């Protein structure tokens, strides 16, 4: 399974998760885990997703998520999980 991590940061508002999930559903990316907090009005979400069966390329998905981020005024980042494994696991 190829996994990626999506992180979302910005001021909380209606429809953030919905918009991101729509992008993911359209390209057939399955969500494995979601964790989110809202502290002092700031929305902070970390999602682990399965990109094995994704229809779009990684770049296209990243572009789409970027576009959603710009629309919502938030920072949305998608990264392969290996960078976290490399840094935090021996």
């Amino acid at each position: 399974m190829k996994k990626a991590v999506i992180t979302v940061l910005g001021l909380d508002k209606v429809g953030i998760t919905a918009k991101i999930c729509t992008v993911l559903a359209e390209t057939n990316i399955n969500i494995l885990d979601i964790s989110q907090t809202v502290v002092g009005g700031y929305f902070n979400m970390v999602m682990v997703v399965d990109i094995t069966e994704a229809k779009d390329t990684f770049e296209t998905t990243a572009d789409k998520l970027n576009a959603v981020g710009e629309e919502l005024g938030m920072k949305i980042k998608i990264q392969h999980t290996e960078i976290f494994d490399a840094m935090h696991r021996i």
Partner: protein
Amino acid sequence: MITRNEILETNSMISEMNLDVRTITMGISLLDCADPDIERFNEKVYKKITTYAKDLVQVGDALAREYGIPVVNKRISVTPIAIAAAGCKNADSYVSIAKTLDQAAKDVGVNFIGGFSALVQKGYTESDRKLIASIPEALAQTDCVCSSVNVGTSRNGLNMDAVKEMGEIIRKTAELTKDRECIGCAKLVVFCNAVEDNPFMAGAFHGVGEADCCINVGISGPGVVKKALEEVRDADFETLCETVKRTAFKITRVGQLIAQEASKRLNVPFGIIDLSLAPTPAVGDSIAEIFQEMGLEEAGAPGTTAALALLNDNVKKGGVMASSYVGGLSGAFIPVSEDHGMIDACEKGALTLEKLEAMTCVCSVGLDMIALPGDTSAATLSGIIADEAAIGMVNHKTTAVRLIPVIGRKEGDSVEFGGLLGYAPIISVNRFGCEKFVARGGRIPAPIHSFKN
């Protein structure tokens, strides 16, 4: 499973603490381009570089995107041209080769190409002489080409003829680029114990013991180390060293991942990771800030050499375990113009040329990106090179000198190079002469402890 905190920690290192992969450098051997005719040699060189490195920039950018970490520079190092071009019997000057390298670098989109170099630690070949004589013009007429000359090693001693000549070459290079802040000198390094797999410019070249092509990666992250040290502000040295080690480990693991991926995608063997803390002029990306975090008022204050020694050593201890192959220069860089904290320290008078020289005894490189008054003589430059090379020779370490005598400026003025090269205040130089010493000529023999066989 990776935890949420670990994910957020990695991303804050990247977004807030300037963690990045400083350079992916492709080393390319030009030995098989040898030709008696310099024009044919140039054609072969251009073709080989633009074929091998055609995807380098694109792969670097794709990796940056997919892993969410900036890959700041994509660069190329080549076989020292004095060796690769030694067969060109019909040429008196190698400037056309520098122009070929420059064109190849621009056409594949890299920002620097290193290897306009000669290794003359024990003596000159005819080709070495031609190359060195071509340096000032080559650097004045190109944008991306970097040059280096190795004038000594611990095994061979110092070639003092070369030390003398390089003082003159630095001056000539400054003269030829005086309308551009003497920028030529920022692309010229004089080494003792040069390493063959260094990915960092301006001193990168692809050694003759290397494979046909390989990928070397230079990592960075002074900001991450500084931030980590903020958490242990009043702790003792054991805790301080542990924190540096742990941070260096994490940074290096990212470099190792990117290096392996780059090597796989480009289908080129992975060479080494260079574990260097390389500052940039950005705030929060400074070695001097680390010293301040350790408890020094300014870089250059008493204690700075000790602070640098422990920083350098613990970066290596942490990093070595994180990568399968460590090489290059590996340590902390202390370039003056590329580190705003070092610039401040020079401006305040806390940091002098002599203190910088002392610091180079314990760090990875040497007197790097230091702007000197425009009337600094060639002999004085040679004297400084000789001192620095002697430190490298006796201590079995790499030392380098990258000095910029800024023509028309004096102590207290400043000079702006722009971009990653930053700006620098012009600092004072000892005014007492060394002409007779430098003019002696010949070689300084290797030190006694180099006879290990």
